[in-house]
């Protein structure tokens, strides 16, 4: 904190304009070092070198307003809360200087001044106790805890829990996968017989006439050799299954000739 006695400039330029200007500049340059306007007011108040309870709030307000004025002439931008405080102090000053208006219901200038003094005293008190707190013996610096605390055997028993709801939701999740994702390619290039069966059942209605089984392969499974092979195998196996169930008929004219299927005509 600067020790330049900021109250010197509040006496106005008549006394020592250069010193006052320097003092104000020092304060302004240091504004970053203040934790807000209340902190700055406290610093200004301390410069009065009296008990905070007997401080001249009017004098303090004038000091602060002079500081803001200086900042303005030096074209230094102050944070908004400094200006808010300035406006409030200007109001307070007018309250303190003007004779009380009997019709005014607001708080008196004295009440406002007393509150400001209270705030300053409280802030200073908090700082003082904070310092006392930090001055106490501290754990890990002045006193110490047991260095080998792991003497306590912690028998950790992990208990797994699951609710019936978890169980049902998990099952629902799996089953919906089955119901609504007949073509899921968990194994990228594997077409299962179940999938083929499912698919063929849906297509059977269109198989009134003999149809080449290889033309039934689903899109995306007709060109790539690996995929074509697995799809063909799956569809062939599925057609055997459907034939076994009596739903379709199969024919093949020769070894390696195309396999034809058709829906079994209703008897």
């Amino acid at each position: 904190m600067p020790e330049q006695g900021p109250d010197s400039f509040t006496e106005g330029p008549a006394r020592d304009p250069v010193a006052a200007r320097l003092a104000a500049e020092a304060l302004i340059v240091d504004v970053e070092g203040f934790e807000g306007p209340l902190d700055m007011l406290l610093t200004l108040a301390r410069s009065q070198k009296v008990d905070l309870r007997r401080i001249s709030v009017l004098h303090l307000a004038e000091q602060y307003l002079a500081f803001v004025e200086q900042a303005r002439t030096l074209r230094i931008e102050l944070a908004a809360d400094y200006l808010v405080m300035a406006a409030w102090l200007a109001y307070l000053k007018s309250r303190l200087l003007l004779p009380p208006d009997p019709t005014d219901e607001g708080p008196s200038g004295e009440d406002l001044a007393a509150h400001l003094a209270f705030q300053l005293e409280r802030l200073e008190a908090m700082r003082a106790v904070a310092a006392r707190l930090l001055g106490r013996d501290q754990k890990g610096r002045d006193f110490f805890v047991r260095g080998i605390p792991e003497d306590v055997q912690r028998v950790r028993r992990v208990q797994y829990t699951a609710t019936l709801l978890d169980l049902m939701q998990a099952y629902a999740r799996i089953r919906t996968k089955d119901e609504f994702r007949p073509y899921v390619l968990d194994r990228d290039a594997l077409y299962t017989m179940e999938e083929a069966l499912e698919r063929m059942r849906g297509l059977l209605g269109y198989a009134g006439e003999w149809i080449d089984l290889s033309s039934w392969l689903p899109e995306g499974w007709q060109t790539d050799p690996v995929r074509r092979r697995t799809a063909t195998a799956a569809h062939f196996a599925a057609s055997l299954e459907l034939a076994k169930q009596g739903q379709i008929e199969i024919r093949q004219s020769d070894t390696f000739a195309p396999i034809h299927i058709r829906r079994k005509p209703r008897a």
Partner: protein
Amino acid sequence: MTRNPPEQEESLFEAPPIGEQERMVEAILFASAEPLRVAELNARMPHGCDAAAALAHLARRYEGRGVRLVRVGEGWAFRTAPDLGFLMQKETVELRKLSRAAIETLAIIAYHQPVTRAEIEEIRGVSVSRGTVDQLLELDWIRFGRRRMTPGRPVTYVVTEEFLDHFGLESARDLPGLKELRAAGLLDSRPMPGGPDDAEAEDGQTDMFEDES
């Protein structure tokens, strides 16, 4: 935490003699780095034991020793005597340097608890940055208290047992200068005359330190 009065058990289990209970408390507390509550001690000791009585004996035994039995909030712990701290350079942990804002905020929470962020800001005259509160929470020196029953139900902050332990305090009542501050009225919640929060006047004051339990 309540437990059955020892009388109920006595017919079934003979409680160990008090000297033996003292040994047990000594062993359990010695082994633990964290303070343990009487209820926790009782829970680990055989039925019928009275950890509180054993603690009283034990505290006397360790008076003036290099290791002391100290009370930390609701808990008890062994800590080395502070006058021997100079021997412990090897054990010293680097205490994180707290910012001025953090130290002041901590003091305000300790002396005004439970206290809202708005009240901290009112006392310091500046806004409290998130980082400041986060740092104190991370150190486990403050925690959230009950919400204030005022519009917006703001959260409050209170200090923790870890805070008490760190600063060697038995309870928040033992904060240095607390009585003087209270006597001087500096812990009163005094609203700005004519200000908007005139109505909430005494709120902060009434439940102060109620949260201790």
